[in-house]
C-alpha cells in the first residue's frame, strides 16, 4: 500500500497514488502555518508519525530539508522540534544516515533562547553516539568547528557542549584541532562563552589523554580560575573536581593546588561559596594528604567567612567532611581543628547558618563516640534546642535518631521537652506539622511512660487544632503511635479521649472523631472497634450536620471489613439504610456506596474483601460544604461524583474552608 516504505525499501515503494505521497508533508506545512501556537506545537510533536508515513528516504529528502529551511517559530515549537530530532535516527534510516539530522539541529543550536539551544545540544550529543567514526569526522566534527567559530556567541556557547562527545572517537590529527578550538573558546571575548567553556572544562578533561590534560587543560583551568568575571571563576572550581581526579598527587600539588587555594580565598564571595558547596567532592578528589594540609585550613576559613552565605554552605558540609576523613586520627583532627569553629557557629548571628549546622551537627556524634559526644557535642545540641529560631530547633529534633544510637535520648530529654512543647504550639502551622511528623520517632525513643506523662496531651490537643492539615496529621500520628505502643495502650489512653469528642459542639471536632476511628480501627483490631468505636459511629448517624452524617457512612464503609458479619448485618446495615433515605443527597450517595460495599462483603465472605479504595481523599469532603446545593439537583450521583476528581486541596485553602459553620 501507499507510503509503506520501511527501511531498505526502494524509492518506488514510497510512491502510491500521486496525492497520497505528498500528503503528509503538505499537511505539516499547512499546520505549521496555523496561527494557533498550540496547533503548531501539536503538529511538531507528531513529527515522528509524519516521518513514519513518509518512510526513511522521503524523510531525508523532503521532510528534513523542509524543517531546516523553515526554522523560524516560537521558541516553544523549536524546543519541541529539537527534542524530536534527537530520537530521529531510526526514522532517517539508521546510523548511516544520522548525519542528515545535523543541519536542522545546527540551526537550532544557534538560536538565542537558551532552553532551545540546550535541547538542541542535548539531541546533538545523543546523535553523535549513533554516528560511525567516519561519519563523525566527515559530518559531526565540521559542524562543531563551524559552531565554535560562529559569529554570534550563541553558536560558540553551544559548541562548548559538543567537544567531549566527538573527541574520543576522532583521529589524532582531528583531536589536535578539536583541542585547539576548545582552547580558543576558553579565552573568548564574550563572558557567556567563557562560562560555557568553563562549565564543560571538567567533562572535556575526562576524555583527554593525560599528557594533554597536563599540558593544555591545566593552563586553561588556571586562566579561567583567574578570570576577571567571578561568574567564570566559580565555574572553574567545579572543573577542579574533575581535573583533580585525573592527576597524580605530585601533579596535583604542583598544578592544581595553587589555584584552588587562591579560589578558597577569592575576593568574591560567590567563588568562596562555590568552594564551600563543592567541598566534599574536592576533598574526595584531592585525597587525604592534601585534605589535611590544605583543605582543613581552607575549611576553617570558610566556616568563619564574613558572608553568611559562605558560612552556611560550609556548615552544611561539616558532617560529610568529618566522615570522609581517614579513620586514623580522625577524632583528633575533628576535636582540635573543626570543633572549635563549630562552637562559634552555634551562636552565629545568621539563622540560616545556625539551621544549616543544626541539620548536620547530630551526625557528628556517631563519628566522635559516646564520651566526646556527651562532653563536647551535647552542650551544643542543648544550646541549639533553645535557639530562638524554630527551624534550628526543628532540625535538631528531626535528627535525634543519630544521637539516640550513641548516647540515648534520655540525656537530652530534659531540654527536649520544652523545645518540643514550644514547637508544638508554634504559631506557624507548618512548624507544628513538622513536629507532629517526628512524634512517632520521638515516642519510640523516649518510651511509653515518658510519652504518657509529657507528650500525650500534646497529641490530643492537635486533634482540635484549627488547621485541618494539623488535625489530619494528628490523626495519622495516633495510628502510628498505636502501632508502636499496642492496642492495650490505645484502649486505655487514646480511644476514650477520641470518643469523647463525638459529643463536641463543634462539628469539625465530631468529624475528627470519625477520621480517628477510620485511622485507628485497623490498628486496634476487631474487638475494640466493635465494642467501643462502632456504637459511637452509629450514634453519630443522627447528627444534625450533613457532613457528619455522610462521614458516618464513609466510616462505616471503612471499618466494615474489620467487623464481623453479625455486627454488619444487625447494626451497620439498618443505620446505613436509614442514611440511604436521608434528605441530603450527599449523605444518600455515600450511604449507597457503603451499602453496596457492605453487601459485597456479606455475600462474598469467602473472599477477602479489598475495600480500601476509598472514593475520595480526606480533602475532598471538605469541598462539600463549599458547594452550594441547588434544590433542583436530582440524582446524588452527578455532582457528588465530580467532587471526587478534585481530591486534595492545599492546607491553606482548607483553612478558609473551615470558616464555614453549619448550624
Amino acid at each position, binding site marked *: 500500500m501507499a*507510503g509503506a516504505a520501511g*527501511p531498505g525499501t526502494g524509492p518506488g515503494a514510497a510512491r502510491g497514488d500521486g496525492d*497520497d505521497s505528498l500528503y503528509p508533508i503538505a499537511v505539516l506545512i499547512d499546520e505549521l502555518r496555523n496561527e494557533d501556537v498550540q496547533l503548531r506545537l501539536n503538529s511538531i510533536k507528531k513529527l515522528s508519525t509524519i516521518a*513514519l*508515513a513518509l518512510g526513511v528516504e522521503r524523510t531525508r529528502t523532503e521532510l528534513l530539508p523542509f524543517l531546516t529551511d523553515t526554522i523560524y517559530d516560537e521558541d516553544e515549537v523549536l524546543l519541541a522540534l529539537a527534542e524530536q530530532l534527537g530520537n530521529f535516527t531510526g526514522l532517517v534510516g539508521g546510523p548511516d544516515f544520522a548525519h542528515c539530522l545535523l543541519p536542522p539541529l545546527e540551526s537550532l543550536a544557534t538560536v538565542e533562547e537558551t532552553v532551545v539551544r540546550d535541547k538542541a545540544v542535548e539531541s546533538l550529543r545523543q546523535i553523535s553516539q549513533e554516528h560511525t567514526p567516519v561519519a563523525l569526522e566527515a559530518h559531526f566534527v565540521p559542524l562543531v568547528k563551524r559552531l565554535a567559530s560562529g559569529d554570534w556567541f550563541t553558536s560558540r556557547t553551544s559548541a562548548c557542549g559538543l567537544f567531549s562527545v566527538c573527541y574520543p572517537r576522532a583521529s589524532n590529527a582531528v583531536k589536535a584541532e578539536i583541542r585547539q578550538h576548545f582552547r580558543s573558546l576558553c579565552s573568548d571575548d564574550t563572558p557567556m562563552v567563557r562560562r560555557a567553556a568553563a562549565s564543560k572544562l571538567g567533562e572535556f578533561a575526562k576524555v583527554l589523554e593525560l599528557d594533554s590534560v597536563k599540558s593544555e587543560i591545566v593552563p586553561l583551568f588556571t586562566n579561567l580560575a583567574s578570570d576577571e568575571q567571578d*561568574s567564570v571563576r566559580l565555574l572553574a572550581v567545579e572543573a577542579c573536581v574533575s581535573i583533580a581526579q585525573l592527576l597524580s598527587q605530585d601533579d596535583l600539588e604542583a598544578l592544581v593546588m595553587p589555584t584552588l587555594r587562591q579560589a578558597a580565598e577569592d575576593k568574591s*564571595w560567590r567563588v568562596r561559596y562555590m568552594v564551600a558547596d563543592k567541598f566534599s567532592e574536592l576533598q574526595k578528589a584531592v585525597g587525604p594528604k592534601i585534605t589535611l594540609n590544605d583543605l582543613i585550613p581552607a575549611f576553617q576559613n570558610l566556616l568563619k567567612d564574613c558572608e553568611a552565605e559562605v558560612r552556611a554552605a560550609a556548615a552544611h558540609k561539616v558532617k560529610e567532611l568529618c566522615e570522609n576523613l581517614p579513620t586514623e586520627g580522625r577524632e583528633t583532627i575533628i576535636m582540635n581543628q573543626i570543633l572549635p569553629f563549630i562552637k562559634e557557629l552555634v551562636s552565629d548571628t545568621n539563622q540560616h547558618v545556625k539551621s544549616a549546622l543544626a541539620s548536620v551537627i547530630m551526625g557528628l556524634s556517631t563519628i566522635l563516640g559516646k564520651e566526646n559526644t556527651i562532653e563536647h557535642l551535647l552542650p551544643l545540641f542543648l544550646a541549639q534546642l533553645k535557639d530562638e529560631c524554630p527551624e534550628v530547633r526543628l532540625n535538631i529534633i528531626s535528627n535525634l535518631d543519630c544521637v539516640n544510637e550513641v548516647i540515648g535520648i534520655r540525656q537530652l530529654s530534659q531540654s527536649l521537652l520544652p523545645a518540643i512543647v514550644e514547637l508544638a504550639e508554634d504559631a506557624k502551622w507548618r512548624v507544628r506539622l513538622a513536629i507532629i511528623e517526628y512524634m512517632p520517632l520521638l515516642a519510640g525513643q523516649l518510651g511509653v511512660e515518658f510519652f504518657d506523662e509529657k507528650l500525650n496531651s500534646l497529641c490530643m490537643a492537635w486533634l482540635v487544632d484549627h488547621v485541618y492539615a494539623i488535625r489530619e496529621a494528628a490523626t495519622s500520628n495516633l495510628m502510628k503511635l498505636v502501632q508502636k505502643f499496642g492496642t492495650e495502650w490505645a484502649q486505655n489512653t487514646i480511644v476514650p479521649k477520641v470518643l469523647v469528642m463525638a459529643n463536641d459542639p463543634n462539628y469539625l471536632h465530631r468529624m475528627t472523631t470519625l477520621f480517628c476511628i477510620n485511622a485507628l480501627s485497623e490498628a486496634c483490631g476487631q474487638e475494640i472497634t466493635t465494642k467501643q468505636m462502632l456504637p459511637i459511629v452509629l450514634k453519630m448517624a443522627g447528627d444534625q450536620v450533613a457532613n457528619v452524617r455522610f462521614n458516618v457512612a464513609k466510616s462505616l464503609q471503612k471499618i466494615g471489613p474489620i467487623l464481623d458479619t453479625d455486627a454488619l448485618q444487625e447494626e451497620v446495615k439498618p443505620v446505613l439504610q436509614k442514611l440511604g433515605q436521608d434528605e441530603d443527597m450527599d449523605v444518600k450517595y455515600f450511604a449507597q456506596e457503603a451499602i453496596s460495599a457492605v453487601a459485597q462483603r456479606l455475600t462474598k465472605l469467602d473472599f477477602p474483601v479489598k475495600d480500601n479504595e476509598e472514593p475520595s481523599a480526606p480533602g475532598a469532603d471538605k469541598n462539600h460544604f463549599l458547594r452550594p446545593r441547588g434544590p433542583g439537583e436530582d440524582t446524588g450521583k452527578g455532582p457528588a461524583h465530580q467532587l471526587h476528581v478534585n481530591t486534595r486541596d492545599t492546607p491553606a485553602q482548607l483553612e478558609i474552608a473551615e470558616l464555614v459553620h453549619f448550624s
Partner: protein
Amino acid sequence: MRKKGSRLAPVTNPRRRCLVVRQVCKSSGQLEAQSPLDPGAARRRWRRDAERAECGRAKPEPERGRRSRAGSGRAEMPYKLKKEKEPPKLAKGTAKPSSSSKDGGGESTDESQPQPQPQPQPQPQPPSSNKRPSNSTPPPTQLSKIKYSGGPQIVKKERRQSSSRFNLSKNRELQKLPALKDSPTQEREELFIQKLRQCCVLFDFVSDPLSDLKFKEVKRAGLNEMVEYITHSRDVVTEAIYPEAVTMFSVNLFRTLPPSSNPTGAEFDPEEDEPTLEAAWPHLQLVYEFFLRFLESPDFQPNIAKKYIDQKFVLALLDLFDSEDPRERDFLKTILHRIYGKFLGLRAYIRRQINHIFYRFIYETEHHNGIAELLEILGSIINGFALPLKEEHKMFLIRVLLPLHKVKSLSVYHPQLAYCVVQFLEKESSLTEPVIVGLLKFWPKTHSPKEVMFLNELEEILDVIEPSEFSKVMEPLFRQLAKCVSSPHFQVAERALYYWNNEYIMSLISDNAARVLPIMFPALYRNSKSHWNKTIHGLIYNALKLFMEMNQKLFDDCTQQYKAEKQKGRFRMKEREEMWQKIEELARLNPQYPMFRAPPPLPPVYSMETETPTAEDIQLLKRTVETEAVQMLKDIKKEKVLLRRKSELPQDVYTIKALEAHKRAEEFLTASQEAL
C-alpha cells in the same frame, strides 16, 4: 541620510494624538470579600495583579507628563479626538539637537515649555497621558520603585543595610590636615594629594558602626572639603592629581557586592522588595560626588585621564551597577555617562560590556539591579547615533533590546527600554518591521501586566510608524490585537481598545480597512456580548461604531462572513482530525511504527468563550452599537478617575527617608553624540 527628509518633515505626517482616558472598573476592583465562601485569597491576588498592571502605565507618567501643557491632563471623552495644535515639529526637533538634525530651533522651544517637576511623584498623577514619544532625554529611572502613600503601613523595620565587606585598612587613625583654602597656594597640590591618600583608608560601617567615629569624621570632612575645592577652584586638577583621584575612587568603591538580603530567584519581586541600602553611604556618597565633580571640572583633560580611566576601570565600574542601593546606581549612571561622553576610545568597549551584562541578564540570571540605569544611558547614546545607523547598532536593537522584553522583571525598566526602541525607530523607520515582529514573538502569554506594558510600547511605536511600514506588519499585528481585545483580563482588553482613541492609528486602520477589519471584526463581535466586564462592552461598541463609520459596506460583509466562518470552523476542525487520522494510518504501515509511537493526542483545546447568539442580524447589531456607544459616553463622563494603589506592604521608614534624601546629580541624561 536618505530617510532624513521624510522624518524631518513631520507636518505631512498626520501625527495627531488624543487623550487616553484611564478608568478602572469600579465594580470589579472594589469588591470586598463579603462571604467566607469567597475565594478571598484569589481575589486579593487578582487585585494585586490588577494594580500591577496599572503600574506599567502609571509609572512612566511623570516623564511623559513633562511636556504636557497645563489642562490637557483632564479626563476627556474617550473618542472625541483631541487634536494636537502644537506643531509636531517641536517634539521632533528637540529630540535631536544632533548633527543630523536640521532644525536647530528645538532647543529653545524646549526651554520655553513649562516643565512640571519630573520627579517621581508619590500619588496624585492624573492617570491620563498625553503621549509624546520623542523626548530628548531618556526617562529617568525612579529611585524608589515603591510608591509610598504614607499612612499606617509605614513601619520601622529592622535596619536593612547591606554588608559590603571592604578590606578594612589596618591603620585607621587619621590626622586632621590643615584646610586647603588656608594653606599657601604652592603647597595646595601637595596637601590635596595628601588628603586624597588619606581618604583611601576604609572604615567599618556594618559590624561595628560606632567604631573609629573620630577618624570617620576626619575622612568625611576631608571629602567634603575636596568636593568644595574641586568645584569652586580653578586649575586645581593638575597632572599629579589624576592618578591619586582615580586610585582613591577605586579603593573606596571597587568591591564585591554582598549577597542580597532579598529573596533570590522566583521569590524576588523587583517592584516590591525593598532595596538594601549601602551602610558605608556617608563616605561613598562623598567619594562619588567628588569623582563626578572631578570629571566635570573644566580643567579635566581626558587625554591625561585616559591613562588611569581605562578598560579595567570601566569594567569594575560596570560591575557596581548591580548594587541594590538606588542612590549608588544613580551616581554610577551619571559617572558612566560622563565617561562615555569624554572618552571616545572607551565608547565601543563600554557598549560591548553593557551588552554582556544584558546577555547574562536575559539568558542566564534574570537578575540585575541596574538594567534601568544602563538603558537610560543607552537611551542617551542612541539619541546621539549618527545616520545612517551602523550595522552594529541595528544588531544591538534586534539582539539585545528586543530580547530584553522577555525577562520577567520587565516592569522595572520598561519605560527606559521603550524609549530606546522608539528612539531607534525615529532614527530609522525601516527597523519598524523587525521590531514589531520581535515584540510579537516575545508577546507575553500569561503575564497580563506585562501584556499591558507591551501594548503601551506598541502604541508608542505606532505613533511614529510610517504608513508604508504599517502595511508591512499590520496583519500579524492586528491578529495579536484581536487576541488582546478578547483577553479575559479586562485591563489588557481595555488597553488594547484604547488604540481606537488614537487618531493616528485610526487613520492608519482606515487606510487599510480592507485588510484590518476582517481580522479584528470576529474578536470584537464575539466579545461585544460575551466579555464579562461591562466597561469592555462599551469600548467594544465604540470600536465597532468606528469601523461601521469607516466603511459601511465592509462592515456588513464582515458580519456576514463572521457567521459563515463560524460554521466553517467546526467543519475545519473535523477535517483536521481526519487529516491526521489518515497520516496515522499511513504511518501504521511502516514496520518501524511500534518503535516510534507518537504521544497520545492531546485533548483538544477548548476556548473559554461562550456561544454568542448568531441570530442577531446586522440591523440589530448596528442599533446596539449606536445605543451602547452613546451610553458609554455618558458613563465615562461620570466615571471618576481612580488612583492607582499599590498593595499595602509595610515599608521601612528608614529606607524611604534615605531615598528621599538622595539628590540626583542631574535629572536627565543628555544625548552623547556619536563620533563619526
